[in-house]
């Protein structure tokens, strides 16, 4: 079967697979698949054998828009605390409120990711300025308009993966904590994974239902949850192939058992 004659569904599926395995973008995946006439396995090999042939296209987001740094600082001052060192949770709340951005919007989180922010709902001056520069925001108006569109930054699988993994650490609020509480994980998962996995509702339901048994989520379980959502068929048919796919963390094993028990 040649690539050009393949069905749209197959194409999308194949691109998805290549992209998720290699971490390349869908565009690159398409190019590799063209080269291998649609064969997924050889496409992956091809990508790994000759990465230089498939450079990632420049991110679609055009070169960083020119921003007025002074305006940014003004914006920061307006919402920062009295020492003007940080934007604190209540400052952020005001900012979101006045810019009419829904706090649950994933864009807010992406903004924090771009800021390389360390603490939830808080921005240092440097963090805030960095994020504004990256996203081309310099006024309250721009903030209100652009934050909801920031989702474009996480369109490539690689970018999303980075974002996804970062979000776990971002939400580790307590000192020396290594695990997210069930509750936090549930909220975070709800924000970042929306529409990205067929298991979305089930995972949230599982975490809520089992909050007494699954009290925390480890970083490994969190990271693997992404792989799980991307790689596993909705019918779980490629989940537990002995000797090949039995490496899933315990929480995910429990999740699958839970699904099976429901059926």
């Amino acid at each position, binding site marked *: 079967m040649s690539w050009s004659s393949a069905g749209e569904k197959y194409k999308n599926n194949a691109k998805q697979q290549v992209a998720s395995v290699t*971490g390349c973008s869908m565009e690159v995946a398409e190019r590799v698949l063209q080269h291998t006439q649609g064969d997924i396995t050889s496409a992956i090999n091809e990508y*790994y054998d000759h990465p230089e042939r498939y450079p990632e296209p420049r991110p679609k987001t055009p070169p960083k828009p020119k921003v007025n740094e002074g305006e940014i600082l003004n914006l920061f001052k307006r919402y920062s605390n009295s020492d003007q060192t940080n934007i604190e949770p209540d400052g952020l709340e005001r900012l979101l409120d006045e810019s009419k951005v829904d706090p649950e919007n994933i864009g807010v989180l992406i903004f924090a990711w771009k800021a390389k922010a360390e603490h939830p709902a808080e921005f240092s001056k440097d963090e805030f300025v960095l994020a504004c520069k990256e996203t081309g925001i310099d006024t309250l108006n721009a903030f209100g308009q652009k934050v909801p569109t920031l989702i474009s930054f996480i369109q490539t699988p690689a970018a999303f993966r980075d974002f996804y993994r970062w979000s776990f650490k971002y939400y580790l609020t307590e000192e020396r904590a*290594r*695990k997210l509480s069930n509750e936090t994980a549930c909220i975070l998962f709800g924000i970042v994974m929306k529409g990205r996995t067929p298991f979305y509702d089930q995972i949230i339901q599982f975490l809520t239902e089992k909050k007494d048994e699954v009290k925390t989520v480890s970083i*490994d379980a969190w990271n693997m949850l992404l792989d799980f959502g991307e790689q596993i068929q909705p019918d779980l048919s490629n989940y537990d192939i002995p000797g*090949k796919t039995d*490496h899933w*963390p*315990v929480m995910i*094993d429990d999740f699958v058992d839970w699904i099976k028990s429901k059926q």
Partner: protein
Amino acid sequence: MSRPPAYVQQAEETWTHLEKGLEEIKILIEGGSSRPWELKQYLDYTNKVYGLVKQHETQKILANHIQAYIVNLCTGVIMPILKDLRDQQFLSELSVRWYRFKLFCKIISLLYSHLDNGYFNPKTSKPGEEDNTIQQLQPFAYTQFRTRVFKDLHKTSQNLILSFIDKDRDGEAVDVTMLKNAVDLFIMMDPKDKTYYRDLEREYLSRTSTFYRNMATKALQTDTSPEYMIKCENAFAAENQRIKNYMSSSSQIPVRDTLIVELLQKHVKELLDMEHSGFVQLVEGNKLEDLARMYSLMRNLDNGIGIIPMSKDFQVYMMSVGNEMMKNQEIIQKNEGAPKEAKKPAKDEAKPEAEEGMVKDEPEPEDGAKKKKKKKKKKSAKAEGDDDAAEPAEPAPKETGEDGAEGGEGDAADAPKKKKKKIIKKTVKKVVNETQQNVEFVDSLLKLYSRFNKMYLECFQSNKFFNDAIKNAFTDFLNQTSVGKSCPELLAIFVDDFVKKKQAQQVDDFVKTTFDEVVALLNYLHEKDKFMENYKTLLAKRLLTQYDQSTFQEETERYFLTLLKNQHGHAFTADMDGMFSDHSSANTLQEAFDTYVVDERLNLNIDLQVQIITDSHWPRFMYRELQLKPVLQNALAAFEKFYKSRHNNRSLRWLHSNATLVMSLKFAKKTCEVTMTSEQGNLLSEFNEGTFSFVDIATRLGLDQAETKRLVISLMNPKNPILCVIGDSSEETTDLKETDKVAFNIAHDPIKKKFRIQAPSVLSAFEKKGIATAVDELRKFQIQCAICRIVKAAKGIEFTQLQTNVLEQLNLFHPTTKEIKLGVEDLIERDYIERDAKQNDRIILKS
């Protein structure tokens, strides 16, 4: 007619002499009267031969003569005799004749060796001479015998030989020598290719085969398998003997093979599965002799049809017996477990108060900071101090002190008490039984193992298939069921019970065998680490509670430890070694302390014996604060000062719960000095204040109810009841109930003035929990270590392979997939390892 030359005449003359000599020899061989030749005669004869051989002309004359003589011997003498004989007479004569002929040939080949060398010697023979002259005398003679005698008679004699062998096999008496010579003839007539013999052998084998085929069919209709096997064994022996008697030894293997096929191979299944006496029935009936016989017979067959099916059956049988035992034990445990279960709800209520009741105004010395060392004390209450007697929880009451326990006694009338005693007896019995049952269960496991192991060693000659069978079977049933889970613990309890016994005082064969069996069973357990922790805790109890007694059987204990070390390596026993060395260094330290006390002119008013134990080696102990009397406080402080002076950087912590103390108890008839553990003493002093149920006591002391009950019962030993139940007399009860009121048994009259109360030997809940925690932690640690090692060595490894390798590395227990996964997760979390970004089932070291 020309006259022959003179030398011919002379030669003829000499031949006449020589011929006479030959006749003499013949008579000699036939057993005639002639005396054996002397050397002179012999030399004379060979000289004459030499004289003729020397000259070329006479050589030939001599050769012709002697050859003609031999031919004549065959055709003229032997044949005519044999011709008219039949059957046995014939065969007998033939064998005799052949025997003599052979002997004769041997002798003439000696006498005519000059001729052989000079005339017949192939090296000197000229080309063109006739072939038969080249042959030396003996081969020539054999050839003559073959062509002139044997050829015509060989069929007849073969049949005769075979029929005699048949008779022999049927048990008739036959002339073995005759057969031997006759068979020898068959061999010698063609010593190189043995065609005649092989003919004979073929027929012989075929008859053997037929004979045993019939025998087997017939025997199997009536015989049990042991009977049949005896017949087989006899058949093998008989045929073997037959070969030795008259056949060529080269026939041994073919005959054996024939027997194997006919007797065993064709009937192996029938034999092994025979109803009532098959292999399994023999194992069941412990028929060692029959089993050994069966094994050595089956050993002759291919492993695949004999030994392996046997070992499989063996395994299945052991498994069924083992599982049966496990099932029974399970039922027992369930029955025991039930009443305990019922009491659980009540337990928690008392808990919140735990410990608090104990801590009074005086803080424990050295209780803060980091504890590198724990300390455990022993006190002998020889002190003369004048303290109040009824200090609760004070472990060193004085002789002069009033033991208020009598207060509780006043109400207890004699009559109800007697009734109650019965109940107590029952109660105590039950507790003892629990341990007893466990011990008996392990004992029965050991007996089972020993029984099968004996079969393996003695009957199955240490064949590895049977070893595997034992291993598989025991591994299977020991680890499977819920009882299996407790096997490591039970095994440790068994060892504990065993080393306390009198029989274990010396390391004799009995002790050695028992320990070997224990170690063997341990090998089959998956959770060896559980055994180790249980054993360790029990060992700690033995070391501490039997400290000043001669009852601690160090030699035996150490012997067992050595066995463990040999089997599982040094790391397995490191803690126990440490415990032993603490134990043995106690005396030195004690002496030093005693000297110190004298040197410093300290007046402690008390005999303080301290055992220092190194924290890291010993199991977890319960730290319990005790309010100490000044005299004791002083003593402990003195010791601390002394110890600090020796080891400045070590910190001490007193382990009061493991102390031994002596209490003086005032019974109605006498006052006794009683040694007991501090826990027992602590509990006992409560009874200064009245009568209580064990639930009350638990609340008062802030102890777990089950614990308290255990302690109370330990003071109710029917032989020596320090405590007794009073109040209502429901005689039906067999258990100490929550409502039963217990009091000091003032009416008791101990036999001795000084005695010791046995510490409760069952593991307490605290100890059990400690064991479980220790096992858990150790497992986690070991799993993670193994993962790190493997990942590091492999640079990167797929999870499946990692799991396999972890299982290979850990032999003390079998981690589950879940445990390994959790280990991986934990290590990822702590940044030791990570998943390969491109392949998430691949684990790599964190860069």
